[in-house]
């Protein structure tokens, strides 16, 4: 069974020059454990492959159930020189949150409290 990442986590993205960061924050401890396993550097790098990042790195902030991804050289020039509409990677988080994630048969423990059983 699969759920979109948005059921398990929220997030925000932005820029550092020509690099983008995407923070993914699990709603629950169980969700964080699952995402540490499923949302690997390879998975995120593959999902965003068309952006042409030279490297993807993942950092853990377990204190806030956060996984922070750095996508190096992913912004086609960044705020200054990129010809894209989204020069600053603002839409990368909401795009990643569409990613389907394989979850156990009973995913209640993963989703945002208050939105269970929906």
């Amino acid at each position, binding site marked *: 069974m699969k759920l979109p990442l*948005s059921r398990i986590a*929220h*997030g*925000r993205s*932005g*820029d*550092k*020059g*020509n*690099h983008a*960061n995407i*923070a993914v*924050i699990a709603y629950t401890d169980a969700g964080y454990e699952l995402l540490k396993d499923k949302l690997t550097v390879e998975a995120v790098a593959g*999902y*965003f*492959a*068309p*952006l042409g990042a030279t490297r993807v790195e993942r*950092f*853990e*902030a*377990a*204190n*806030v*159930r*956060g996984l*922070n991804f*750095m996508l*190096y*050289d992913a912004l*086609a*020039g*960044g*705020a*200054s*020189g990129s*010809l*894209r*509409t*989204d020069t600053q990677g603002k*839409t*990368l*988080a*909401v*795009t990643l*949150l*569409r990613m389907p994630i394989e979850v156990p048969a009973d995913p209640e423990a993963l989703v*945002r409290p208050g939105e269970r059983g929906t």
Partner: protein
Amino acid sequence: MKQHVRIGNGCGFWGDNLDAPVRLAAAGKLDYLTLEYLAELTMSILAVQLAKDPTAGFATDFVDVLTRLAPILNHLPQLKVVTNAGGMNPVGCAAAAREVLTKAGLPEKPIAVVGGDDLMPRLDELIAAGHEFKHLDSGDPLSSIRGKVVSANAYLGAKPIVDALKLGADIVITGRVADASLTVGPAAFEFGWDFTDSHLDRLAAATVAGHLIECGAQVTGGLWINADDDARLGNVGYPIAVMAEDGTFSITKPAGTGGAVNIETVVEQLLYEVADPAKYYTPDVVANFTTVQVKETETDVVAVTGGTANGVTDTYKVSIAYRDGYMAAGTLVIAGPHAVEKARQSAAVFLERLRRAGFTYAASHVEVLGAGATVPGVLKADHEPPEVVLRIAMKDSNRASIERFTKEFAPLVTGGFPGTTGYTTGRPPIREVFAFWPALVAKSAVTPTVNLI
């Protein structure tokens, strides 16, 4: 010593809501109002303005904001303002601020100017002395693009702000100071933190506070993934950090305002524009965000504890901008059956006409917005949209080529495909591109200055 210091940020970037600083100052019961105006490339734009006009080169929005703040400052004499609106010309900004305050009946209000961040006048001297300003990513020395450089500013820290407050300033106007340091400065001044090892964790904690509030409404409901109509973003309140001497603090917003402060809004902002969360580099301290604990203590109040230091660097980050050609981007709307395909065909026609006219471009980019173009290649529309926006952007070192490009949109309205519209705003503007060159410089090579005016 105050038990708590209330620091509110009423501006997250140049272009932010003009009413926010006034509303926050009026309702926030603040000790300090911070106003943050400088993004990575703002300095290059201000440098070009300063080159044309010696009285320009600062964030002029601040002058309008101060005009509207003046009655509140009259009423709340203890409220202090700390801002990096000075940009490339903090002295000029202070002169404009002085004029505003004098007109408002506050001619004596002490203003301090923090400078020394502008390395441009000393750049060749510094390079000659062995400071290479190597590009942080590529490692190339600055000498490879020296002739194109328009601005070079070190990100100063909180210490000169503390010095300005010690001199009795009510308004502190700085050039390029790191965003979070606008918050760290007032906290360090009020609680008597020095910049030695004994207070590093407190400086790190205040850096967390500064990082959380520096983007204004981004911590109070703006960009919150779960924001909806109930979030009342139309009346969003701007953030306040309520700091204690031990470095613990709460994030909140004025009562009755819209938006939200909760664990989700705070954690989203905590990790915003962060690389390694264990090493958030600022001029004051390397802050560790992975030791931070957040707890919602009441509605719209989140307590933040546990920020710790991960050392201090002996370098300042330097933001360098250099001339990198010209660019423009224009849009048309394509509606009707097969809108996506027709938009692609329109782009092909557009590009062929420029080719036939003899123009070539260093870079071009076509987006069919509505068909999954903002993150190119990653997502596709799951149904055929009734209309799309065709956006074409181009860049080149030759301004005339870009000028010709901007004139090729209108002809598609008559000589393109049926269902083409949306050409009402005229030819797109041409903008000079300033590329960003991040580097480091030894702290010993930079001397921050503080002057009361």
